[in-house]
């Protein structure tokens, strides 16, 4: 393995990545080198959205990003969303509304929906559906997830 050395900025913390193989994806480095296991991998093709993270404010599939190219970017994972231990509105809504079953798709969906509501506080029903259509959930059939998004929109609206 060739030795590479670079730094990643994750959830506001700078991490040195040493002795890694340059071909490692951001998903692999986040999980296996930096211990951010909240980000999940389920397809390695950018189809399922389980590995969604924010990179400089954009939602990306971390399985499709080479970790070394993420130097200098601000990366936010699901672990970076709860502030001072408090669940954010989307996280709270997922628990309250039964949007979590096995929970494997949940971190990616939470990141994607948080990003959606940060950019559009009042998305239409079809925009919500289109925005999360890149995040596959195999357990819920999405009904409770739609419910959770509505709660998150309402709570965020009240808190504004």
């Amino acid at each position, binding site marked *: 393995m060739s030795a590479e050395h670079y730094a990643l900025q994750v959830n506001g913390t700078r991490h040195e990545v040493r002795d890694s193989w340059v071909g490692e994806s951001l998903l692999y480095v986040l999980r296996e080198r930096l211990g951010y296991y909240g980000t999940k991998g389920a397809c390695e093709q950018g189809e399922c959205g389980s590995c969604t993270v924010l990179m400089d404010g954009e939602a990306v599939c971390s399985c499709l990003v080479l970790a070394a190219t993420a130097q200098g970017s601000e990366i936010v994972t699901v672990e970076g969303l709860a502030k001072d231990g408090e669940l954010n509105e989307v996280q709270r809504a997922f628990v309250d509304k039964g949007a979590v079953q096995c929970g494997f798709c949940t971190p990616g969906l939470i990141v994607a929906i948080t990003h959606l509501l940060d950019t559009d506080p009042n998305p239409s029903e079809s925009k919500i559906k289109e925005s999360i259509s890149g995040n596959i959930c195999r357990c819920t059939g999405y009904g*409770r997830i739609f419910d959770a998004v509505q709660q998150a929109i309402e709570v965020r609206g009240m808190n504004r």
Partner: protein
Amino acid sequence: MSTTITANRNTLGTSVLRPDGAAKVRGDFQFSSDEFATNMLWGATLRSPHPYARILSIDVSAALKINGVSCVLLADDVPGKATYGLISSDQPVFAKDVVRYMGEPIAAVAADHPETCKRALQAIVVEFEVLSPLVDPEQCLDDSIAPIHPDGNVFRRQRIVRGDQTIVGEVQVEGTYDIGMQDQAFLGLEAALAIPGHDGRSVELHIATQWLHEDRKQIADCLGLPEEAVQLVLGGVGGAFGAREDISLQVHSCLLALRTGRPVKMQYSREESFFGHVHRHPAKIWMRHHATRDGRIQRIEARMLMDGGAYTSTSPAVLINAITHTQGPYVCENATVEGIAVRTNNPPCGAMRGFGVVQACFAHERQMDKLAKACGIDPVDIRLRNAMSKGDLLITGQPMDSVAPVARCITETAAIPLPDDPEGGDPLLLPGGSGLTAERRNIRRGVGWGVSMKNLMYSEGFDDYSTARCTLRDGVAHLKFATSEVGQGFVTLAIQIATSILGVDHVELEQIDTRIGSAGSTSASRQTWMSGGALDGACRMVREMLFQKVGAEHGIDPLRLAIVDTDVVDTMGTLRIPVREASAGSTLAHTFEHHHRPTSDLDENGQGNCHVAFAFVAHRAVVDVDPDLGLVKVIQIATAQDVGRVLNPLSAIGQIEGGIAQGLGLAVMEEIVIDQGRVRNPSFTDYLLPTALDAPDVEAVFIEEPEPMAPLGAKGIGEPPCISVTPAIVAAISNAIGKNIDRTPVRPQDICL
């Protein structure tokens, strides 16, 4: 005496939230793929590129020379039994002389990095003599074709013969139905961490599975170790749906750990997962219904041929489920059914949500629509006219001796309002979705029906009991069980049971592992009934012990004591003390095994009380179809499901919506495409799954008629949602385009060509 229930207590019947919900939304919940051990190695599997081939030689020398590679294991390195399997032990841990399906494991490697593993696998040289694969199930019945396995090319053949075989109906309808191979496609890929014991003769496996104890038995046999030397701990499970009932990487990871003396982590990629677990059986089903002119079923003839792929898995049980559900939830006194499950060089098939009944239901529901048409009767009326009820006999001779609200399921589904007129709306929600290929004026709307019956628990004499322990200490209930939590929410239900029975508000769930008796599998819609029953029994016994203790301390007959809210109350006196106080300083514990009523085998004519119990459901689908491009958008699914009793409304609706989405997948998009034994679409790019844009509006009604045989009055609810929704959607498509469709999933060419 107060009967008020304190608000916000986690009792049965309320929408208690998941105890693991917060961890899952934070990303803190540890799935099996998140497990990690210091000094661990990575494991990987070498798989056959051919569906059928002789192995002439295997050379691992180049792989062993790669820096970072610790070991390579082959068939001869398996110290115990060379094969495993749920029903028949016919699947090799590693192929030795022959490979029988594309993706069959040949070798396993352990190395310091997943990438090193990949290089090692590429460096292993296997010389094959490629053989012509047996891929046509009909050919398996031809005795002149050489068996592809020493156990032969037929897994099981069973007939059902009942009543008068000579009846010829005034009306006859028939069809041959094709059901495609579906993948469970759980999101959390197969993953395990095997940790060897210091003695080198024991191992602890952290694994995402549906049935810890069955895994342990098969693993221990292959390792050549006593079961006590193999302990399993449930790793966080990212969905299952049947695909984790069989062994995948369990034995391989333990072998690598024991050989290297270091912890070994294995996890499959999505592509490997398509090869690493069994799928839903593809089936070809012929059925002929004989009926009176007014549509009453007199006799059914059927032949079901199920492709089990290369190894047995659960094919014999899937077959029996299919043929014993030939009639569906309808009265039928005469039947002739032949069922055959065969071995081919296609991918092995086994358990998936619905387990054989999905296939049978697709055929009988398409038949009911044909019968309705032939008799000039409405699809709802034909089903109501034939609806089974308590007291009827099944074609196996088994009496339907408990709750069977089939007619209610149908009428309450029919009462759900149809969706709005299709005019207007967002073009994104038309067939074709974001492709924006459809124009509203070309879209045709259709309505279709599906109704089903599903057996609950295991069948044919199998005693799939469950074990649970309750320990009450200082007002806290500690619960221990080996029940696999795969996402369905048993952990929530466990808290509700203890809260309701013991009057506690603090429940601790202990680690789910093999350090208690078996809970059986999380499958067959059975854990609420079976493990719920075991916990119910354990908690009730502990409550009795508490009453004995309080009775002795206060000189009161324990029979007078009851739990009210969080107190022990003397129902004939004034004593009222909190459970916390009453249980202070003592430890009350009981382990309980729940067994369902016994079942029996089928005789040679398929007669026998082989099933424990049944649940029913009706589905009505409304679809929009673009007839030019053959694209479908499912608009609404209305459903009324026989649930016995709702224990947690939020969990129940989640099961119903989730099951419907999987049934929708089988109706319009999900199929593993196989060509000469080769899987052509082992990825989420090519195997399509329902997304948020495909999700229909689900309008659900619970039919609550408590089941007297069930410990909590609740029937299993996991499987029924995904069974009859598939034929309902296909019927709706047929209705929209005015063309009969006899296969699922429905492809664009089935609609527009």
